[in-house]
């Protein structure tokens, strides 16, 4: 690789991905889509970790990414199970209708 991609490019990409994630998290009503937007935000963060790890030539950033991925995988497993359970009982995944906890 001859031409270095500047760090700013990675960061801007990560920021864009993160913002999309936030926006989707706030706007979308389907629980699975919200779940996916969380994954998107996590991966945006992963991207910055990797970019900085590359920039500083340190592996700790990459190790963090692995941890994040492990957590995300665990979360996906548990989260999807919960989603299925909710769908079975409520016959819907619209978050506006799953608000029994609302005061």
């Amino acid at each position, binding site marked *: 690789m001859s031409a270095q991609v500047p760090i700013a490019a990675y960061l801007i990409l990560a920021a864009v991905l993160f913002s999309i994630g*936030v926006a989707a*998290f*706030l706007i979308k009503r389907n629980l699975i889509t919200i779940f996916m937007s969380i994954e998107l935000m996590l991966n945006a963060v992963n991207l910055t970790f990797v970019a900085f790890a590359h920039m500083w030539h340190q592996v700790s950033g990459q190790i963090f990414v692995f941890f994040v991925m492990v957590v995300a995988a665990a979360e996906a497993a548990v989260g999807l199970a919960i989603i299925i359970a909710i769908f079975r009982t409520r016959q819907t995944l619209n*978050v506006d209708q799953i*608000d029994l906890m*609302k*005061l």
Partner: protein
Amino acid sequence: MSPMPSSYLWLIPLLPFAGFLINGTLGRKLPRAAVTAVALLFTAIPAAIVAWLWITMKAAGAPEVIGVISQPWITITGFQVDFAFTVDHLTLIMLGVVTGVGFLIHLYSAGYMAHEEGYWRFFAYLNLFMFFMLVLVLAESFLLLFVGWEGVGLASYLLIGFYFKKDSAANAGKKAFIVNRIGDFGFLLAMFLLVEHFGNLNFTEVFSAISANPDWHGGILTAIALLLVLGAAGKSAQIPLYVWLPDAMEGPTPVSALIHAATMVTAGIYMVARCHVLFDRSPYALGVVAVIGAATAIFAASIGMVQHDIKRVLAYSTVSQLGYMFLACGVGAYAAGIFHLLTHAFFKALLFLAAGSVIHALSGEQDMRRMGGLRKRIPITFWTMSAGVFAIAGIWPFAGFFSKDEILYRTFTSDDPIGKLLWAVGLITAGMTSFYMFRLWFKTFFGPEKFKTADKDEHGHAAHGVHESPWIMLFPLVVLAILSVIGGWVGIPAALGGHNEIEHFLDPVFANASTAEAATVVVSHGLELTLAAISLLTAGIGFFFAYVFYYSKRGTANAIAHKSKPLYNLLANKFYVDEIYNTFIVTPLLMFTRLILELLVENGVVGGSGQAAGASAKGIGSLTRRIQSGNIRSYAGWLAFGAAAVLLVMIFGRSLWTR
């Protein structure tokens, strides 16, 4: 060495206070006998201690101050007031009166109040009064005296309003308290001036500071003295603050005897006498005291002549006699004033208690127009009351003769420019006193029986005919009657072959004052005898008129009253003083309170600020509660918005605070 009595001083006021605590907290549950025992015991022991003090003091000769106990009370840089009790000869006389007469009246009350509701409450208040009164006379500083002063006012308020279900009693209590407050205001200002100019409130220090500077005259001392006079006029019911005392008769009769005749109302005279060092330096203030005293004496006596309520006659007579004591203090004859205080305590307590016995016998009747002929029905009350009537009328050799005569003599010989005028006023008052007292005597005990046998009474006990009181009530009457006869013999002047012991007894206290008088004492025994004869003659004239009007030619009084209708009405309506006060002071004050204080300050400022605080909280709440929607996504949105804001501030905002 045998224990000094002074180490037991603190017991004197503290025991009645313990009695108050016991009866006040447990009294409701205790049987009446226990309440009586507590109340009597806790006043008898102080009386015994005082008697012991007296004996010790006699044995020890005549030291100026017998005992002091003292603890620092309030200490600020450059200013200290001690919690100090002291006993000198003046205090000893007061202690004797308060504990002795106080105990007798407690005894009497046990009989008089036997059937009343709130028996325990009555004795608790009575003991509370004893406590404060003893603090008042024992106090060694203006501040502690003021504590007692306020305390007796409180006890007086509670006891006047003892029958608090009766509107008139509750109002009388309030009136007494509020009128006294005006006087207390003067007392407070006087204390402020004392602190300002002496940096001290202890009697010893203030008085020695004055004694050490013989060139201090008038000026600030006059101001302090006049403010103290205002305080004394409130407590001792002098013009213009006397109006509360006649109304105070709404209280039970023993209270009238103890508080509103024998002890509390003499606190003003005691205070003036106690501060004689101060008053001696201010001839102007002394003049004011003398004029107030003489004016009050004749004013109250003239009202007393036409009252029909037996207790009201005695009330106005008390005001009038207090005027005599003021007059005595005003002409510098403090010892004579205290002498009259002593004898007055005996015969006025006796008169009130005997009147109480009459009222008791008639099951609550107080109107003299419905009495008469009681001489045979209640002989012991009659004889004891006669002793009191003769004493107050100034008939030789009863107690009142010597003390009143001493005051008149001292007034006549004083170097006060209007001394002769004051003497004439005092003399006329003496005649009037004799008249209204014998009027009371004749109307109550002689003539046809006008009372009707009560079938129902306000007094609480079963209806029975006119009856003599039980012995527990008669015993104090007899003791006080004896004292009313012989009490004056401690002050028989040299002109009548006595030694005027009381004056020599008080010499250590009034040493400064009596040096000036020493010159006049020598003047002539002839003059004193002449004056005594004149006042005896005046008393005789009073008796004669009362005899004619109310005994031999009944109806004469009514005819005269009818003929001089305007004058009679003026007197019967007490010179309309209550009405004048109502129109010019009470009503405007109430208007001011209702319009300015209630509408503007209470509803506007005080209530308004509360309302405004509530409304603003509500308004802000109604705005911000929209945020708390319960919609999880809006919370997440706020979270993201907040995080973004923090981020923006951290990135771009740095330039704002780092230059």
